[in-house]
């Protein structure tokens, strides 16, 4: 089980790869769209990479609820394999 900080840090690396945002700017309160230059297509890339890294399934219907990095971390933390 990855900790909250491990998940945030992992997502930060993914956002850096996809959108070029420095990893240390990817904090829990940041909005993917408004703060991190992650558009709708890039968000799909982030989700798929996160699924692979953390062993979770993020349903398409759920993606629209993941507005902030914190939303994504919370979803992954709750749903990651025990």
């Amino acid at each position, binding site marked *: 089980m990855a900790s909250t900080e491990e998940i945030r840090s992992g997502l930060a690396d993914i956002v850096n790869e996809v*959108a070029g945002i420095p990893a240390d700017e990817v904090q829990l309160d940041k909005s993917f769209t408004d703060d991190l230059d992650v558009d709708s297509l890039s968000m799909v*890339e982030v989700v798929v990479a996160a*699924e692979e890294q953390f062993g979770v399934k993020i349903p398409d219907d759920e993606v629209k609820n993941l507005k902030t990095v914190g939303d994504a971390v919370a979803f992954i933390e709750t749903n990651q394999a025990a």
Partner: protein
Amino acid sequence: MSAQRIVVTGLGATSPVGGDVPTTWAALLAGTSGARRLTEDWAEQLPVQIAARVAVEPLEVLDRVKARRLDRSGQFALIAALEAWADAGLDAGGVDPERLGVAIASGIGGVTTLLGNYDALLEKGPRRVSPLSIPMLMPNSPAANVGLAIGAKAGVHTPVSACASGNEAISHGVDMIRLGRADVVVVGGTEAAIHPLPMAAFAQMMALSKRNDEPEKASRPWDADRDGFVLGEGAAVLVIENAEHAAARGAQVYAEVAGAGITADSHDIAQPDPGGLGATRAMRMALKESGIEPREIVHINAHATSTPQGDVAECLAITNALDGQIDQVIATSTKSMTGHLLGAAGALESIATVLALRDRLVPPTINLDNPDPAVKLDIATDQRALPSGDIAALNNSFGFGGHNVAIAFRSA
């Protein structure tokens, strides 16, 4: 035809012999080959193991995040377009976005993105297909991304006519300006098809040279020992502009785009018309539209790809198009150095034609050791000088499908 003059005010390229236009032009004048033996593992199983890759990898130039959202063909196009845009002095403004168009062609489109994502689909499943695949692989993607980068709103177009595509894009830009739809059009072509599938497919057509042990000698237009073309990659882009618009902003002028001719053979899907009739008509049409007389043509950058049939048919077509007045013509095939860039070929060779007129220098056709006796043209085998005064030149491109496009240029 309207008296509206159209001029070339900017040039950009990334090619097998240089990462920009000055480097590419110097390499062409020096007779430098860009063909190499492929070192990728996949090449080992192919009958053809040579190609002309770009001299400078796009990731050495482009921002990483920008590059990963573009197919390789889109990366090339953006690099070439931004060079041309800055060269024209337009990066500081100077054109109304609603009067700015783009016509950037591709012969094959985003084939490496398409096939790479198919590999991902087979190996890892549909969830691993990139959501960026479609906007990367669609053939209009390079043109659209260039349009986004420079803010073009007059219209963004992607002519597709195989190896004639680049010239067709130039012709399309000329039409846009002549019809009053734009003042400036960023025109050109791009291609990135060095991948095992297109290479195997071209090889199956017997179109590619198999001179694997001597890559730099493999592209040998008009030589008796030619055995096919060498696949190249890269992009070339020209900024063409209403001459009054260019003069009003004090722009540099490389040459005038005097006219274009487009015809179709309606003969065969892959073989050129052996009599070169469609090519002859395209050149005649370009001359007529330009008001240029055959004796004024002092230089031709030929399509001449190094295939057994096409090179000879083109010579016949040139002789017929100029009513036999070929004594003053110095022809060359820069494909002897760059390989064949398919949808980018016409644009790269138009840049070579424009610079030949400006510098009064014709780059050599390398590897012409033993000219085919059927060739009656004066081919430059060393760097050759063009006369002073007002001179004109033609650039030919022909494509699978029977497409023929000739562009006529005048010295500035």
